[in-house]
């Protein structure tokens, strides 16, 4: 009796070990058809839009019973896992480079802008009660480690009448591969030659100073907990955590606060750049426009053009159609700017280019 039990256990164990390897040659079609998966789609990537995405996926699950599991592991993570085909879609606020595109194992990757957001420069200075005014050049100097004290004359020049404390500036940046970083460094490279020549633009750069937080969550958390810090986070994170956002001088010379209006203003010119043939990898940092917030950006959903799994592919397309329709209306409540209507229409039409159920 015991022997039978033990040998059964042994066989089950060996089968479990062997079965894991025998399943190579991903049979997603078969497994999704036969197994009643509790989750319909798995996605990963950017923390930048995560507050909005988590609301979208939660609403979508409540209203339509389709469960989309999204893990905010950073834009770099989204790109990697998508390339390795361990998730069904990725999300990033830094567009994929040509090199990354060629490395994606499932073929062509399409970029679909989902919403507009902004990187805000946030800080923890209880002594300062009005929003700080900063220029791009000053921000670059701070993050280069050239300005080390809050009461530096360059900061005081931008903020007359504000009593800045004589404290060290503690810089916080991202420790993971981040689209938020991409947007921020894209902006800094545009406004500071020293930055462009130094750390440059990327999802993960060599930071001259500062400590690293994981995800927008980690940076916001560190800034919130540590007096004297300065960091960059997406607008929603600053607002949700009552963190201040600096007013940044834009290309037209005005100090602009990050709001839905100013973000939308930054995207005004971009629609013209994105015709029907565009791949939508457009940067809108340092945009012209009197009221444009200079560190605004699109964020993208990354999907394979060829969706081998018909069921999952259709669910994905359905979700994206919903996103361009009903989804956009919940964006502003969470401090994200909805896409311009014309762009949303254009993108809904573009969904047709996704080949659902195509044999690879």
């Amino acid at each position, binding site marked *: 009796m015991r022997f039978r039990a033990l040998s059964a256990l042994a066989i089950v164990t060996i089968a479990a070990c062997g079965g894991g390897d025998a399943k190579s040659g991903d049979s997603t079609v078969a497994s999704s058809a036969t197994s009643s998966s509790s989750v319909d789609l798995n996605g990963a990537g950017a923390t930048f839009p995560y507050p909005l995405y988590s609301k979208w996926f939660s609403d979508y699950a409540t209203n339509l019973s389709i469960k989309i599991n999204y893990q905010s*592991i950073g834009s770099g993570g989204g*790109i990697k*896992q998508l390339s390795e085909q361990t998730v069904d879609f990725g999300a990033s606020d830094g567009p994929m480079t040509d090199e990354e595109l060629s490395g994606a194992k499932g073929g062509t990757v399409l970029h679909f802008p989902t919403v507009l957001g902004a990187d805000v420069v946030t800080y923890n200075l209880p002594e300062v009660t009005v929003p700080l005014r900063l220029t791009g050049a000053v921000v670059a100097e701070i993050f280069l480690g050239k300005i080390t004290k809050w009461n530096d004359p360059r900061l005081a020049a931008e903020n007359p009448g504000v009593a800045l404390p004589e404290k060290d500036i503690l810089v916080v940046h991202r420790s*993971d591969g981040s689209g938020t970083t991409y947007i921020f460094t894209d902006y800094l490279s545009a406004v500071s030659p020293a930055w462009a020549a130094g750390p440059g633009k990327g999802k993960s750069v060599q*930071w001259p100073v500062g400590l690293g937080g994981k995800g927008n969550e980690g940076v916001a958390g560190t800034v919130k907990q540590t007096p004297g810090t300065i960091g960059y986070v997406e607008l929603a994170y600053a607002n949700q955590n009552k963190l201040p956002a600096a007013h940044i001088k834009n290309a037209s010379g005005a100090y602009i606060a990050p709001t839905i209006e100013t973000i939308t203003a930054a995207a005004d010119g971009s629609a013209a750049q994105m015709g029907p043939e565009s791949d939508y990898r457009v940067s809108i940092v340092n945009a012209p426009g009197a009221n444009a917030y200079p560190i605004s950006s699109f964020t993208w959903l990354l999907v394979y053009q060829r969706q081998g799994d018909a069921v999952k592919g259709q669910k994905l397309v359905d979700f994206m159609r919903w996103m361009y329709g009903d989804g956009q209306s919940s964006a502003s409540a969470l401090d994200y700017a909805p896409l311009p209507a014309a762009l949303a229409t254009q993108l809904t039409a573009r969904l047709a280019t996704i080949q659902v159920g195509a044999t690879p």
Partner: protein
Amino acid sequence: MSQPTHGAVVEPAAPGGRSTTAQADDAIAGSSRGDGVYRFLTTAAAWAIPLLLGLITLEVVLAAWPAFETFGLSFLTSSEWDEVRGVFGAAPMIYGTVVSSVLALVLATPLALGVAIFLSEFAPSWLRTPVAFLVDLLAAIPSVVYGLWGIFVLLPFLRETVMPFLAGTLGLGNTPFFSGPAYGPSMLAAAVILAIMILPYISAVSREVLMAVPRSQREAAMALGATKWEMIRDAVIPYARSGIVGGVILGLGRALGETMAVTMLIGNRHEISSSLFAPGYTLASVIANEFAEATGALHTSALMACGAVLLGVTLLVNAIARWLVWQVAREGR
């Protein structure tokens, strides 16, 4: 029913040969198909361990190879970690791993030894079990809980009390070791949490070897007129020394591989800094932070290479520790 073998002669035990259990079995019992299956299954299970270890090592080293090939020895000495330009150097992580672990040892060992001595020599018997239990329980707390507690309790305490005290009141702020702004997340924070985490391991091993010191040693010292402390210092500890060292090295091994709590407290910065107040990085933390998103074969390979270095170092340290502890165990018997 099995047949006993006729006239079986019990072979003398060859050195490194089979144990007496198996020999006795052969002498008494015959064999059956069930025995063959049983022997096969247990042998297979035993083989699983070296196979697993070998597979892990192979997999990690193979994946790490491109990075070693591209950067050569500079991977171990360079501090440049530039994803944009594709240059990777693990020196800050190696430095951080070693410094945080060694500092943790420095903080933990006196305390662990003190507790061990307390438990083996001074504690009244009613106090012994509860205190031992509480110290051992430190080992049961998951790393992520240490990290959680570290972020919300330890970091503010360090930032607001300890660091200003060290830098200001003690005036150490001018030395390179305690210079720089007090962020909170820092090498010091990582070392402190590691010290708490490895304390139970050093303490448990030390306690065992101290208790294993023969009474004759103790009585001899007492007979010579030693006070209790002198007996401990001169008779007990030197006798147990290699075992204690083994325990310390075991603690070191644990500290080197620790991931979650350190990631949450060290500040995640690719830079070697002499100051303990500065953020740093360890081999384990960089993998935890960057692995899920390392696109580009070279970045992934560089992270695997960090894993390979970590693997090599921890294997070596643990092997030394085990050997030392076994030495003592052998001598004591």
